[in-house]
């Protein structure tokens, strides 16, 4: 019953993971490595590194790839379905219900009250990204890149996609140079 196992593994890790895909990675790990033993720790961290090298939501990449390895094309479809669809259905039901009753004053109140909470969550996430940037780049570069981004997005009105594409290309070029240096430098 491989397909059933795939479904259970990704349904569980999807339904129990709050706070977006990345926070559900430990749950996926538990299902894939401990419960169903499809991979060992090393293989799992390999897949994680692989998924991180590509853009897009991390959880569906992991689910799709692991499903594919375990059960072929249908394993992939199954894993993707189990990860995404149940929570999408919940979301549609929940929000449609809210929208249907939004002229009632107490429902309108609910929708207003939830806004500052979303603001705080987003602010915390933004700060998280700043702290991580500081850790990997140091304050100087982190602040410089933040300022460049503010300038580009707010004052020059550049599409965020273009800004990110430019940053990605710069990173690729810088990374390649570093690699050359390391090769020339020998042991390091």
């Amino acid at each position, binding site marked *: 019953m491989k397909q059933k196992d795939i479904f259970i593994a990704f349904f569980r890790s999807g339904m129990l993971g709050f706070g977006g895909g990345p926070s559900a990675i430990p749950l996926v790990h538990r299902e894939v490595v401990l419960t169903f033993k499809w991979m060992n720790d090393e293989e799992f961290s390999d897949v994680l590194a692989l998924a991180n090298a*590509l853009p897009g939501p991390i959880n569906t990449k992991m689910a799709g790839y692991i499903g594919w390895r375990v059960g072929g094309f249908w394993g992939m479809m199954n894993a993707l379905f189990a990860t995404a669809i149940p*929570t999408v259905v919940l979301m549609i039901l929940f929000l449609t219900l809210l929208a249907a009753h939004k002229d009632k004053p107490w429902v309108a109140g609910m929708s207003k009250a939830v806004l500052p909470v979303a603001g705080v*969550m987003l602010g915390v996430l933004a700060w998280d990204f700043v702290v991580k940037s500081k850790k990997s780049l140091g304050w100087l570069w982190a602040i410089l890149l933040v300022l460049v981004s503010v300038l580009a997005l707010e004052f020059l009105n550049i599409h965020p996609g273009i*800004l990110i594409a430019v940053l990605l290309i*710069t990173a690729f070029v810088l990374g390649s140079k570093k690699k050359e240096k390391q090769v020339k430098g020998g042991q390091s």
Partner: protein
Amino acid sequence: MIYWQIFLAFFIPGILGYGGGPSSIPLIENEVVDRYGWLTVHEFSEMLALGNALPGPIATKMAGYIGFQQAGVLGAAVALFATVAPSMIMMITLLSILLKYKHSPQVRKMTQLVRPAIAVLLGIMTVSFFVNSISVEGAGYIHTIIIGVASLFLLEKWKIHPAYVIAGALVYGAIFL
């Protein structure tokens, strides 16, 4: 062509969002609020808050809901496909190349350099959420401060689960607003 627009609106954040679903939130906002005007800032923030109160990956929840709202079940399917398929296809077809590069300095640098930009995008969104919240259509200054400070402490200091904090805010809103 609404389906083509839906595809583009989620394809672009999907291929530019480095570092998982949450980093594509501001990119999705840019498409669905600023470019296509499918949702207002207020509606988007409501969706995000309720999406955070539910389990599962955030990017697919938003894609599925917005797609459904714009063009029904087929719209949801297109949005989900655009979110998931490109990176999925890359992952499977480029496997051998990726295996070689997975720990390469290029890849590490890419995630590192994009982070500050994502931080700024998230920061801009945060500001617009609060500006919206203190306006007439929102909760107003006093309630915004009360809810904002309370949820900051609950989420960050006391580590209360987001689902409970959102539920609490909903109850507060139903009674006081």
